[in-house]
């Protein structure tokens, strides 16, 4: 038994170290000028471009736009997906399989294909190059993840709890806020996290629908990766990672604050 626990700890922490160690790579690359084989550390460090990159007004614009897009996408995705996932998770009805497949479709079709077609219609209705247009296309690609996560949460939760509360005389609003929401909250957080992450890392869709009017962090970052400018690419990557992490930590903290009791006492 003791031995088993050690293996568990070993597996888990090996994985954790493997997850984090690439960050060290990025930090080193961000500061290295020359790093010839076989040196384990860069033979020449530099911080030349660092200040210029970090202080540029474009970066501030990009971070703000990225965060705004990701937040709006998260809200839009949850609003759309919550009822549908509840339907698919709790009820058996004709078309349930079709719904599940439809919600999974955006993951299966290469993003550029759909976005190019969508761009045509967005131009026609005047949504191309607008924040709303970009949020819509980000939401399309966040739906599959959020839908699956929430659907399983509802499946596991089952219908009984809501029904019991209703039988005890709770109104629909009361049932929702006192029973449903606390029960699905961990799932909601996971779904929100995925939606946020999907939106935050979108490149090609922001590109096509935003048409360059909306500047996001990936739009700054990707050209440097493609151009082999590891310096700038690493700096922007670090900005990207830490902004996203900070936003997610904040999100979880807010949720915990509001649902402290139910979330921890009734896991």
């Amino acid at each position, binding site marked *: *038994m003791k031995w*088993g626990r050690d293996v*568990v*700890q070993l*597996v*888990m*922490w090996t*994985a*954790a170290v*493997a*997850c984090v160690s*690439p960050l060290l*790579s990025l930090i080193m*690359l961000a500061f290295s000028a020359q790093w010839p*084989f*076989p040196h*384990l550390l860069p033979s020449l460090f530099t911080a030349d471009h660092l200040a210029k990159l970090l202080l540029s007004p474009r970066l501030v614009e990009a971070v703000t736009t990225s965060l705004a897009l990701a937040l709006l996408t998260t809200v839009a995705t949850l609003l*759309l997906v919550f009822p*549908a996932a509840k*339907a698919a998770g709790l*009820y058996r009805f004709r*078309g349930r399989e079709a719904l*599940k*497949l*439809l*919600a*999974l*479709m*955006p*993951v*299966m*079709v*290469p993003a*550029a*294909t*759909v976005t*190019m*077609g*969508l761009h045509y*219609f967005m131009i026609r209705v005047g949504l191309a190059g607008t924040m709303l247009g970009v949020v819509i296309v980000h*939401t*399309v690609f966040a*739906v599959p993840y959020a839908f699956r*996560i929430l659907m399983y949460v509802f*499946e*596991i939760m089952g219908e009984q709890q809501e029904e019991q509360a209703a039988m005890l005389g709770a109104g629909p609003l009361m049932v929702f806020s006192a029973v449903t929401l606390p029960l699905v909250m961990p*799932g909601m957080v*996971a779904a929100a*996290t995925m939606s946020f992450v999907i939106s935050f890392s979108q490149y090609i869709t922001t590109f096509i629908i935003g048409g360059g009017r909306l500047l996001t962090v*990936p739009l700054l970052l*990707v050209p440097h*990766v493609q151009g082999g400018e*590891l310096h700038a690419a*690493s700096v922007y*990557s670090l900005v*990207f*990672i830490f902004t996203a*992490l900070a936003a*997610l930590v904040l999100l979880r903290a807010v949720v915990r604050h509001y649902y402290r009791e139910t979330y921890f006492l009734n*896991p």
Partner: protein
Amino acid sequence: MKAASKPYLLAAPLVLFLTLTFGLGLGYEISGLTLRHFLAVLGNRDFVVSLVATLSVAAVATLVSNVGGAALAFAMLKARAGGESVRHILQLPVIMPHLVVTVIVFHIFAQTGVLARLAWWLGFIDDPNQFPLLVFDHFAIGIMLVYLYKQIPFVAMVCFDSLRGISHRFGDVGENLGATPWQVTTRIYLPLLKPTLMATALITFAFAFGAFEVPFLLGTPLWRTLPVEAYLLHINIDPDAQARSMAINVIISAISLGLALVYSSALRVVSHVRHSDGDRP
């Protein structure tokens, strides 16, 4: 008791949204295709090679990342508090864009990468060319490493989230009744996890099957995956190439969709058996 229309009303907004956006976008793009374009794609002598390569890369990545991810999730559940901390760390690979991971994989696994340097210091090699080729290689090791770095934590995170709310109760009951950890895992956790794993497997497969950047930057030039082929046709100036590129994209989507259909009917059989056993949690 409940109006039969309730699930339809609940699903309506999402269905409307997806058909108006995704449906229209896809419909517009494929409307210009003819059979000729598909025949041109299927008749290319590289097509079969590409198809097999893409399928194998996606299949291996899916298998390893789902088995690994589920194992990691079990370990995290078992470790309780430690698992929660690791859950935070797992977010890092999930948020990291594929392109950035590509850079990092090159930096660590190339013949002048961190591992090769360690090998040099330990005296295993005295020249970068002696280090095994792990990027641009014919076995797609570099590509696979990127997918695994992104997907194992993704699978682990989703599994962990879907299990932690309920599993401790079941697991504790099982252990109190004298079940071994192995029995708890296979008899209790794994069945609970089956639908989640089915979904993550589908998502990871579809992603690896349709992704273009990673194989484009880390793959061998000798064979190309279908999405890379589609991209190269897309930027080709031959006037017919655009349509052939789109035809490849349709084929990619059709294969993913076909697999999803087979998969979900398999899932239905599995869950039907489970429901009739009456052990629905």
